[in-house]
């Protein structure tokens, strides 16, 4: 029993959810920051100036006890979110690049699940943006989900996330 408890201590930390494009646009650089969304609006993550490729490979939303309590106490009116954004590499736009079929918008909000603080299992409905990067990722406030994460001490943590893929840049000179 003591051994089991010690092994369970491995599961300390905070939960996380990851949105990632499965493609060759592996990530190139990363930034960590906090977004403050208010008025029940989604926290939106975009490429920003730090991603010269203008696309995102991966966004990891980090659970945080303090932020969860703020979201719960304000019923989502004030929703701070800690995120880690990995810029995608650029897609070289030349004759060998597969043709682009335009932007793809994902579901308004798929539910991502994190089990055992995300360390044991993750449910990640992968955006089907092969060959592209993410344009925006939107984390939607949901007090019930926050309650579940806090109530289970992060053992079961759902999060509602939407996403949009970015089309390739066009026109080589």
């Amino acid at each position, binding site marked *: 029993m003591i051994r089991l408890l010690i*092994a369970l201590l491995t599961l300390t930390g905070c939960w996380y959810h990851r949105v990632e494009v*499965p493609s060759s646009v*592996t990530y190139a650089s990363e930034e960590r920051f906090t977004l403050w969304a208010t008025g029940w609006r989604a926290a939106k993550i975009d490429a920003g100036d730090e991603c010269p490729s203008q696309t995102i490979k991966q966004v990891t939303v980090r659970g945080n006890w303090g932020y969860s309590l703020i979201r719960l106490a304000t019923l989502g009116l004030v929703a701070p979110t800690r995120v880690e954004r990995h810029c995608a590499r650029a897609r070289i736009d030349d004759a060998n690049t597969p043709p682009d079929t335009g932007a793809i918008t994902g579901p308004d909000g798929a539910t991502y699940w994190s089990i*055992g603080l995300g360390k*044991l299992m993750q*449910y990640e409905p*992968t955006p089907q943006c092969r060959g592209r990067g993410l344009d925006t990722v939107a984390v939607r406030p949901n007090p019930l989900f926050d309650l579940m994460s806090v109530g289970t001490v992060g053992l079961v943590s759902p999060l509602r996330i939407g996403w949009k893929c970015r089309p390739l840049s066009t026109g080589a000179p």
Partner: protein
Amino acid sequence: MPNAPTVIVKTNKVWTNWHETVRQKVASYVTIWNANPNVASIADYNATTVVLQKQIADALKRKLEIRAAGGTWSFSPVAATDGILINTQPLNYRFWPEPADLTSEWADRAESLVFAQCGMSIAELNEALQGRGRSLKTSGASNGQTIAGAIATGTHGSAIREGAIHDSVVGLHIVTGPDRHVWLERKTDSVVSDAWLAKLGAERLPDDEVFKAALVSLGCFGIVHGVMLESAEAFWLRAYRGTYQGNDPWEVISQFDFSQVAPHPGVEPYFFQSIFKPYASNSPPCFTLMYATANRPSGPAPERHDKWRPGDGAAEVVANITDLAGGTPKFLAEYLFKQMCPDIDGTCGRWGDMFWDTSTRGKSAGMAIGLPLANAQEAVEALQALNKSYKIPGILALRFVQSSEATLAFTRHAPVTCVLDIDGTLSKKMKDFQEAAWKELQSMGIPFTFHWGKLMPAEPGLVEQMYGQGTVEDWRKGCAAILPDPAARGLFQCGAVRGLGIDP
């Protein structure tokens, strides 16, 4: 007038590799983006060369080491430095040389060449080559390495008639100092014309021995900015994996005798790998066989990720449990083996489809030991016996590579190097076993070498022992030919190389 590349500098950052085996505080972590990231042009490539030269000048001024990091795929600290670490991942231009860019000997083979910027990943190379009806000849099991990182560490696959990735390299563009960058190629097999060199503004350095030394450079020969790579005509692979059902697996492995191997007896596969249970010495191995064909065979495409996948800490949980339990329980060992070796029945794809994105995250431990194929059986049997005292949470895998002429290639054992992988979760048991394993091979008198990008002991003198004093000296001479100034050579060293006692 080209745009300027984007340079993002972070100071005092703690850098971690993909497998979380290395944490290193760096004075400056410099991410460089090409001026126009989406459209490759030689003018913008050259502008990035200038930025790399400025970074070297900055390192000289601040008296810091400077290293280039690629996909951060290495388990070992080979890329790490406490000085300036260049993140080359965004540098992914590729160029397709024209006949005029090449010598007359290569002009009619222009379509086989690709000039890849250092940060181009194996995945990107696969995709780009596929678009032109070409293919890499080999690659590692997954595709996240950058091309410069893969060759600098001797990354290999298991295409049994091919060498490692660096054996396909025919030219290197290396930035060596604030005022100098060179084009290194074999003197006996010159590839590019003066017109190509004029485009890059690089100084030609034709030398077979220096070229062989620089292929597996461990990042010590300057910053490799571009790599000229020879590709193969595109082909298809049809893959099978399962428990070997024949009589003696060592007849297959040691002779490459596939006459009795299902599902295509008598047909030699392009790719062959064998995985052994470390805890069951009499258990048959799991074979992976991939057969090459010119046209697409019938069969499903490889499966991709499931929506449910292990979390980042799953490997660590397994590691802790097995350490606390005093070893891996049989049921868990069986489960892990099945996870590492799922059955495959005739899936088809191009090279890039078969060796795809890795979904493995978190702390893991990989050691790869190169040894002569003739010694593979006694090595595996010895380690299976050794494991009775350790019960590791991992596997023993064999992969096969034609020997390389690169000076410090760990795939140097002729005619075929057998690469014995000891892979699993990063537990104390695993680390202890890996340590005991190479010492066991040493005590048995089996010649061995270590994969530079995987876990290896940092023991001064061991590299000379494995490669021979003369070989290490040849490598140092190669470095000195590119970097004649000792101060410049010191710039590109790191703790890991010094710890091995081979710093040039």
